[in-house]
């Protein structure tokens, strides 16, 4: 419930942010730069005098588009791949399983970083790269669920009726692995938020001057030593709250399905 409330809050920010915030998030005010939090600027201002509160609220927009899209892509790809490999097994299955093993030894961000360095960073490429990196990971979970279903007699009964592969995969098996897929999707969404923010932080995600949390942390973390803490804190808190919110929902989904 709490998780859903947090997510809902950020979704509202993303949708209606520009209408809600007190300042234009892009408006610079060099004279009022680096002002600490006050009644006028709740979270202070940044190096260009832009209002941090407004930028945090509006900054929800990009991440809330990119992360779910990337997750959806990864889950869709992973479900298809997991169904096919779990049901047919064989060589494709073996190959994919080794690939997943390799991927799991490398941190997600490193792989994404390499891919983005190769094809160039843009919002679209971030979505595709995270989606593609997620695909084998989701496939692994789906495959495990499919393996146990494929051994059940209703699949044998379908084969004895002469059903074709796609029917068995998508009509017979898919509804019975929906639970694990849903759990996996919510867990992946949490990772996706984190990954997008991380990529932005290292400059491969959302590009300036867009208000983005990861980007803002990256641009301003050097200032913490000079006592300018509010910019990083506000943005870090935003990332953290969204990740926690998504993970709370993931836990909730898992629990609801377990009973």
């Amino acid at each position, binding site marked *: 419930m709490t998780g859903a409330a947090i997510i809902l809050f950020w979704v509202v920010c993303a949708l209606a942010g520009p209408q809600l915030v007190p300042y234009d998030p892009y408006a610079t005010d060099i004279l009022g730069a680096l002002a600490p939090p006050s009644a006028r600027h709740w979270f202070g201002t940044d190096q260009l005098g832009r209002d941090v509160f407004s930028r945090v609220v509006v900054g929800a927009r990009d991440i809330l588009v990119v992360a779910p899209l990337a997750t959806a892509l990864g889950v869709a790809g992973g479900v298809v791949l997991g169904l096919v490999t779990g049901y047919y097994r064989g060589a494709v299955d073996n190959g994919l399983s080794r690939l997943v093993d390799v991927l799991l030894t490398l941190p997600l961000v490193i792989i994404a970083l390499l891919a983005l360095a190769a094809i160039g960073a843009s919002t679209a490429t971030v979505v595709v790269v995270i989606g593609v990196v997620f695909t084998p990971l989701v496939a692994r979970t789906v495959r495990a669920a499919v393996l146990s279903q494929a051994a059940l*007699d209703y699949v044998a009964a379908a084969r*004895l009726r*002469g059903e074709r592969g796609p029917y068995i995969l998508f009509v*017979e098996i898919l509804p*019975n692995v929906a639970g694990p897929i849903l759990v996996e999707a919510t867990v992946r969404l949490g990772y996706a938020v984190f990954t997008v923010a991380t990529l932005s932080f290292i400059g491969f995600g959302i590009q300036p001057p867009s208000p983005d949390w990861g980007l803002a942390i990256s641009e301003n973390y050097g200032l913490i030593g000079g006592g300018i803490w509010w910019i990083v804190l506000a943005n870090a808190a935003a990332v953290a709250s969204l990740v926690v919110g998504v993970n709370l929902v993931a836990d909730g989904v898992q629990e609801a399905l377990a009973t």
Partner: protein
Amino acid sequence: MTPAPALAIEDLDLAYRVRGRDVSVLHRLSLRIGPGESYGLVGESGSGKSTVALAAVRYLPPNGRVLGGRVLVAGRDLYGLAPEALRRLRATEVSMVYQDPGRALNPSIRVGEQVAEIFRLQGLPPARARDRAVEMLARMRIADPASVADRYPHLLSGGMQQRVAIAMALSTDPRLLILDEPTTGLDVTVEAEILELIAQVRAELGTALLLISHNLAVVAGVCDRVGVLYAGSLVEEGPTREVFDTPRHPYTVGLMRCLPQGGRRKDHGRLDVIPGFPPAPGEGAGGCVFAPRCGLATDRCRAEAPPLHDLGGRLSRCHYPDLAASLPRAAADGLPASVVPDRSGPPILEARGLGKTFGRVRALHDVSLALHAGETLGLVGESGSGKTTLARLLLGLVAPDPGGVVALDGRALAMARRPDQRKALQIVFQNPDSALNPAHSVRRLVGRALVRLARVRKPDRAARLLGLTRSVQLADRYLELKPTQLSGGLKQRVAIARAFAGEPRIVVCDEPTSALDVSVQASVLNLLAELQARRGTAYLFISHDLGTVRYLADRIAVLYLGRLMEIGPSERVFSGPHHPYTASLLSAAPVLNGGSGGRVRLEGEIPSAIDLPGGCVFHTRCPRKLGPVCEREEPALHPGAEPGHEIWCHIPVGEL
């Protein structure tokens, strides 16, 4: 002063708290087990029998609550004891053996160690405890107990694991031993050995027994007295023989009639059934709990709950105990005349030289058999005998080893079958929970089969669907439900409807009733017999329960370790002369009316299918082994006493 009973349950009222509500599972239950007495508690699933076992050791789940009454073990009130006193009581006075020994034993500790732990807890030094453990295993008739003690549980067979579990339970020399379905997962021959062991050990140690089972015959062989539990109430109690010979409660009468016992066959008419369903826990107020399903119920039964009438040494919770035996039959008589299968023509389905090897496991070897239109071929054998593998080969779900042929109407079937070939051969699986897709409604499950197998076009589909589901006696209101919302018997009807959608000529029934309660089993068997009589469908009927096979089968094939031992007309296989293995199977099956005249014992365990014995595969356990010839040569087929009866044994038929 007489010694305190081993277990006394007095007016026990027990409920489980479900969603903030108390759901009553036992009502005013009383029973008393004297020192050294053996008491059997029988009932169908949901009757509360396992709850009785748990209540008797105060091991209820967290939501279980005792609302009234007392449980006394060896004279002490179990629910009034402090934790330490309770622990000591459990350590010394009462032990329990569960259904699944594989889960009751700790998989990471050697079994000898597990048994020795109990002796160490009693204060023995480790070396002495270990000796006692081995002694205890030897007492369980385990050959070579010292080497068994050194093994981990997963290296032991189910029967051996259960012996170890019983050894552990008896190591404390308890006054009361509770056995909850101790043989349910075991093969008949193993079951017979375990039951024999229980009876012997009880005689030696003088332990009182509470044996809980759904199987009346198991209780009949072991117990002095029996109690019949229905919907949380004890409806009848008395000396075992008397209760089973002359039951005095309509429920017991009905239950006994459901059993395909004493050589009943499908051409003798239907089995009787108990109409309706048991009440859901907590449901049903006022009147007799059984009244809604009782053919004798009067207004008095519906209004006034009967007390437990004392009938001189036995009890019955019925207003009319003397009328119980006159309970009218609930199943309609007049089964359509059974078609006498015509075996003169060519068979519709034939297997020739069928074998299957999974890696190093030789699941099936050189099996040939034929099935004619309208007949039932029963397939019996213990677990691991290859019954299910044979079924899957016939259906084309797995490919046979090269050389094996499955032929329909004389034409060999390829792995990829044509629609009309698929339609001809269908299956009813053992476990409907696995066989019915839980995500689909009954309408969809059956409807899809009509589309795929019967090629029914849209305008006719609804009518055909209703026709089909009604023919398996499935009420229309179930059509929109998902399988998880149905009872076991209803699910199996859905599975049967699906199998019959394409009007198959052959249906493989793989233990279709083994997951069902007795009263439900009877109605499913009736249904199968009726469908066969109406449509002339041939069945390959797989079962480990000989009574069930005998009821339905025209011919019987006996499998052991993937090989045919014997095949022949049903009555001939039962009456003999038969293969020594068949003889041992028949004598191992527990029977209701006692009289187990000299059991044919099997030595040792079923050999591994990876390392099969040479010669006759049965020679390692055969009670009638001739000598070296059995170890060297695989026996050839011997014609039996009449045409169509074949036995694979070196012993000449005349001497079998």
